[in-house]
Every structure is written in structure tokens, then in C-alpha cells.
């Protein structure tokens, strides 16, 4: 699975000012709502579900990256948003590092494989130091999109 298959181009935010876990999750879910990928009346339920998942254990996966997520019956395909935070967000990651790069995923309950494929793609690409650093340094959403496309075309190590 490629980034362009699940990341919504209109749901990319840079220079995130939200500095708490809940605020950044709300902002990212809003970006998917504004992109028309989730319904307005589902917003609160989706945010609650993502926060509830975080209570089970952080979705910080190391290297300043987190993947907050949930399944939700209102979506019919995997949808994803990206956010970059210069200041970093405290995410209770296992390695103790603040999170600077977030991928938020909402998947339909009947497609468990898609979620795993997206996680595989995100983690495989982010193992490349250059890609990870460039993404965190992105100042504008189009820069993030270009990097994701380049990663999809195997222009980084991985």
C-alpha cells in the first residue's frame, strides 16, 4: 500500500500549534472532516474512539512518530491525515520522545488487513532517516505531499 492510497491530500497540516494529545487528534480529525472524508455528525464519536484507543497504550512508535487510529463504521475505505509539529506533542511514547510527525488513520471495521498494510508502509518508509527528517522539517502541506509521493516512488532508502 502506498501513502497516496490512504493519505488525503487536503488533510495535511504543518506548523501544528496544538500541543496536547487530544488537541492534535481533534485538529487532525477536523482536517479529514473538512476534506469531506468523514461526516460532520460523526466527528465527536470518531475523536472519542481515537482517544479511547490511546488509553489502552500510546500509539507513539518511536523516532518522534505516532499513529493515532480507530476503526469506524462510518468510513468505507481507509482514510488518513498527516500532521507535523515543530514544538512536539507529548504522546507517552515508549521511548519518551515527543512526537513531531503524526499519521491519523480511520479504517472500516471489515477491512483489518488495510490497517496493517498502512502501518507496514508508514514504518518501513520512516525507517529511512532522510525521509523522516525531511517530513519533520516540512513547512507547508504541499512539501509533505511531495515527500510522500517520492517515498511511494522509492526515492528514499527503504
Amino acid at each position: 500500500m502506498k501513502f497516496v492510497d490512504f493519505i488525503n491530500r487536503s488533510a495535511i497540516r504543518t506548523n501544528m500549534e496544538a500541543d496536547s494529545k487530544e488537541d492534535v487528534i481533534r485538529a487532525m480529525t477536523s482536517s479529514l472532516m473538512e476534506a469531506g472524508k468523514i461526516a460532520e455528525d460523526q466527528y465527536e464519536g470518531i475523536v472519542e474512539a481515537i482517544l479511547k484507543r490511546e488509553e489502552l497504550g500510546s500509539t507513539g512508535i518511536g523516532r518522534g512518530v505516532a499513529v493515532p487510529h480507530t476503526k469506524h463504521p462510518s468510513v468505507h475505505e481507509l482514510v488518513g491525515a498527516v500532521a507535523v509539529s515543530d514544538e512536539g506533542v507529548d504522546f507517552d511514547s515508549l521511548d519518551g520522545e515527543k512526537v513531531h510527525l503524526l499519521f491519523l488513520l480511520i479504517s472500516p471495521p471489515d477491512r483489518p488487513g488495510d490497517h496493517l498494510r498502512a502501518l507496514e508502509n508508514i514504518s518501513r518508509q520512516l525507517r529511512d532517516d532522510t525521509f523522516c527528517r525531511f517530513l519533520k522539517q516540512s513547512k507547508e502541506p504541499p512539501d509533505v505531499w511531495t515527500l510522500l509521493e517520492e517515498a511511494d516512488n522509492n526515492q528514499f532508502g527503504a
Partner: protein
Amino acid sequence: MTSPVVQRVVVVSDKDPLGLHIRPAEQFVRLAMKFTSEIEVVRESLRVDGKSIMHMLTLGAEPGAELRLEAQGDDAEQAVAALARFIENGFVNDQTECPSNG
């Protein structure tokens, strides 16, 4: 003198239909970090660090996937035994000294 590598092949349980997603990857890494041995996990041509969540996720291990656990160090035997049980039991940690979520 270097200690030998302890290996064991395990199959990801189908008790969790998602396979090795973030939560089990985190639990695997927490368990692996309790051992001083170096721990690597191999799936086909991919070899990753068993003490990194990001690395473990690159395996994309769905239910039924075959993984080879490799450990090297003083507690390699115990590490492989505990981690193999965790994978085969459907990501249930049966160790009584399992740390609670912080």
C-alpha cells in the same frame, strides 16, 4: 567468547485478526526490553530489531505469518521462550511480572 544465537520459528496466531499491529508490537517490545540479549525478528528477507516498535511494524505480520525469533546474550533462551509464547498465544503475555501499562 560470544554466546550462540538462540532461534525459534513462530506463527502469528489468528486470535487477533489484525495480526501484529501497534498494540501487540508495543507489548512485544516491552517484553523484549526486559531481556539483556540482542533480539532480532526475521520474516523472509526482512530482519528487524525486536526492541523497536517501528521495526516490528515493518514486518506487516498478518495472522499465519511465519516469523523467526533470534536472540543472542546471557538470557537468550528465556527471551526466545517468552517472546514465542507471546506471539503464539495471540499476544497474551503470560508472565506474572508483566509490567502494567504506565
